[in-house]
């Protein structure tokens, strides 16, 4: 599996797409494979404030529960209802239709690039 080069990554196995002052957040292909069949996704409410590295949601699979960390300080401007309705999108298209939340931010924290993330997951 390769991590798309246009995305940034966190050590919690999330990817971040920066477009202007909005960051789209999802979990990586590596993370979805480790979780297995995702059956339930709980996302923060639109309009709620999130703080970097805090738990803001849950991704539940048949074998475990993963926590969704906010990669960034900001405000949730959109949550992916399609994933709430069809959690399997996280498995089938983690970098596309399986995105989770969009956060409006003011300051960008240090994130990993694709090469650094691949290094992390190849250990």
């Amino acid at each position, binding site marked *: 599996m390769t991590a798309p080069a246009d995305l940034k990554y966190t050590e919690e196995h999330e990817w971040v797409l920066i477009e202007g002052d909005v960051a789209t957040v999802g979990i990586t292909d590596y993370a979805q494979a480790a979780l297995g069949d995702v059956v339930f996704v709980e996302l923060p409410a639109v309009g709620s404030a999130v703080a970097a590295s805090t738990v803001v949601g849950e991704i539940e699979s048949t*074998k475990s529960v993963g926590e969704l960390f906010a990669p960034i300080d900001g405000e949730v401007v959109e949550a992916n209802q399609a994933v709430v309705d069809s959690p399997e999108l996280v498995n089938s298209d983690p970098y596309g239709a399986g995105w989770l939340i969009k956060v409006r931010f003011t300051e960008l924290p240090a994130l990993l690039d694709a090469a650094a993330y691949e290094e992390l997951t190849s250990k």
Partner: protein
Amino acid sequence: MTGGTSGARTAFADRHVGADAAQTAAMLERVGHPSLEALVCAAVPASIQLPAATGGTSIPAAASERQAIAELRAIATKNMVNRSLIGQGYYGTITPAVIQRNVLENPSWYTAYTPYQPEISQGRLEALINFQQVVADLTGLATANASMLDESTAVVEAMLLARRASKSASNRFVVDADLFPQTHALLAGRAEAVGIELAVLPLATIEPAALGECFGLVVQYPGASGLVWDPASVIAAAHEQGALAVAAADLLALAVITSPGELGADIAVGSSQRFGVPMGFGGPHAGYLAVRAGLERQLPGRLVGVSQDAAGKPAYRLTLQTREQHIRREKATSNICTAQVLLAVMASMYAVYHGPRGIRAIAQNVHETAKRFAAELGSTSESFFDTLRFEVEDADAAVAAAHGLGVLIWKADARTVQISLDETVAEDPEPVLAVLTQVLGASAGASAALPAALERTSGYLTHPVFNSYHSETAMMRYLKLLADRDYALDRGMIPLGSCTMKLNAATEMAAVTWPEFSGLHPFAPAADVQGYLELIGDLETWLAELTGYDTVSLQPNAGSQGELAGLLAIRGYHRSRGDEQRNVCLIPQSAHGTNAASAVLAGMRVVVVATDQNGNVDLGDLRAKIEAHRDELSALMITYPSTHGVYEHDVLEITSAVHEAGGQVYVDGANLNALLGYAAFGGFGGDVSHLNLHKTFCIPHGGGGPGVGPVAAKAHLAPFLPGHPLAQSNEHVGLEHGGTPVSAAPFGSPSILPISWAYVRMMGLDGLTRATGAAVLAANYVAARLRDHYPVLYAGEGGLVAHECILDVRTLSAETGVSVDDIAKRLVDYGFHAPTMSFPVAGTLMVEPTESEDQGELDRFVDAMIAIEQEARRVGDGEWPADDNPLAGAPHTAESVIAGEWGHPYSRELAVYPAGAAQARAKYWPPVRRIDQAWGDRNLFCSCPPPEAFA
């Protein structure tokens, strides 16, 4: 040892242990040790071994089966079964004989395990979904779980559920003053441990505005006083501030009064005891918990749902298991892991047998009887279902007078008594009425009863399953049909690691249904329960000796509750010494997830200790963690032998390091079956432990409950072990217990204690010690025979395992693509229940054969495992495609090999008779193919599916 020179099996121990002398000798030779004793002494570290017996034991020499029954008879006669009108959550009920004989006394039901392998558990899963449907229908709520331990613990769980689901920031929980006294007691202790503030208010009489801020409230419906009132406005006031409303409701009353769901309750809890489950001096019974739509993912405990199998047919399974404590560990919101399956099955079958009209008729008869008693005896109650109050000059005198005439009534206060009526009184009211007339006097009373506004108008039990089996023939066949779908110990071995699926002997089971044990109310006067107190005293004394502790409480009604009780005792001890800051609980990485969940619920903070590659506690990391938390150290929880099935040699260093830092040592007794008679927790540094009587001491698993999880401790912890405000005695092995109760009933689930009593009585100390040796031998024999096919993880000294062994499947999986799941399901085709999957290590199988399996059964299992390895190799070699082979297709139903064309690259014979022709005689046919776990979790459906779904 085994029947002398003749080879005949004479003693009970010869029947309990599967292998005879010749087989034992053959297995010992295979593992390379001269005797059972030599084997265990080579495996158990010498430093913790007990000195040779000196003769000073409290455990009498082994009795024969006949002798044990005679002694139990003598004990039973010391119990006095008076007619109980005490109520308070426990009522007389009539167990339909067809249910007693075909469920409670039927090993197909009581020897099954928790339905973790759903393909071979469809019968009891259907019975449990029926239970969920009964509860959901009667409470008027969307989803019910598969049962709770009892009503009071269910109220506690509902409080915790309300706190996490409520949007309110308040930390306050409002409790109706008219709640059962045992529930008040549990709530107080449990809320204090997790920092919830309780406010007790008379909710039936206060203005809703006087509720105050809260995240939730609980009402008893009808009240403990018998009062039937409409809580809708109080519930609405709670909702206005974002709080959740809990109703503790009587299921039988709900057949005639408006359901909690219709009154706006978010959560309903209670007991299903009066649906045909005897009082049994307090338990076991199935509690229940139901929630409105939107809260189902917050449910604690087990939940059965519908999914589909590989053929697209509906199939039942446990759903949403990732919510459970064993996955979430310290993030868990509940430590409840078990249900009361056997009792939930009984209650559900009571509803199946009586149907909606029958249930309504029973409730109406009870209510009519109450109306008549109210009118003829001059009750002061004006709105009631089955419970009436009477003013008297002297309540104690009235209670005593009634007792003298064989009737137990309840003292509400100094000048008030109350009675609760039930279907047994309704069937034959005259003798009871005569006694009460004598005690209370005849006088005209109110004839009012139920408020018209609360008369139930909505239907229930409309599903065909509740409208089809009302003749005894039909009922018997339905129970047989379901039992036949399941795999229990009456078919073959269930080698589940860490579950100890040993024999539950018929003689051990005999006394459970004797009226002297089953017919007593938990709050009956001490004079009536002398037999029980004697039996409980014996068992407490024996267990204390066997574990090296000073006192024992049998109150916890599951292992998880024993853990909680033990940790609460440690907490109480530290606080009594002014060490309130001691709240850190060290738990090894390899521990069972329940440990961490229990610690959190005891108000502790979990700090994880690393384990080394052998699964042992990493001493260096332990010392570092102790140092880092020296002043806050409360406890260390370790399992011995470890969850990896190894006798850790450093255990004495571990326990003394904790003690030096002022901490207490909790030894999880889940694996006691590997130690009994050879070492004792109290002897190597344990301060407190819980045991699982449903593992080591032969209480059957009942398909996933009941259990008994006694907590045993050193004397300094005794004042903090579970007491009970209504106990006939709080003295246990000579020490007073004064901590918060953890079960609704003072002695938890006493009606199944005769099982463990009989086991110890018939084995004697020698027999118990021999069983340990035989269990360790069986595990080491399996390990020795399978080692060349599956690497055995984690062995201790001399390459020996304890009473279980972990088979590593990861290399085989990597080489062939065959998973642990594939092997588990393929074992069904061979006629086995799978071992424990992926615990404590992912990608492995943990096998615990127990002492009760003979060499023939062990060999049959080993041969199946070897054959499956060879099948996996053929997949790995490309002979069979990865997606079409006997493993991927397992388990195979009869239909799957008969219907249509056979287009697979392996034969039908190999599919269903892989062990050859010999298997035909004993073939177990799974009723469904492999079940899709993810589909069921994504498409949550937890009630009875329409019959067309199975067409």
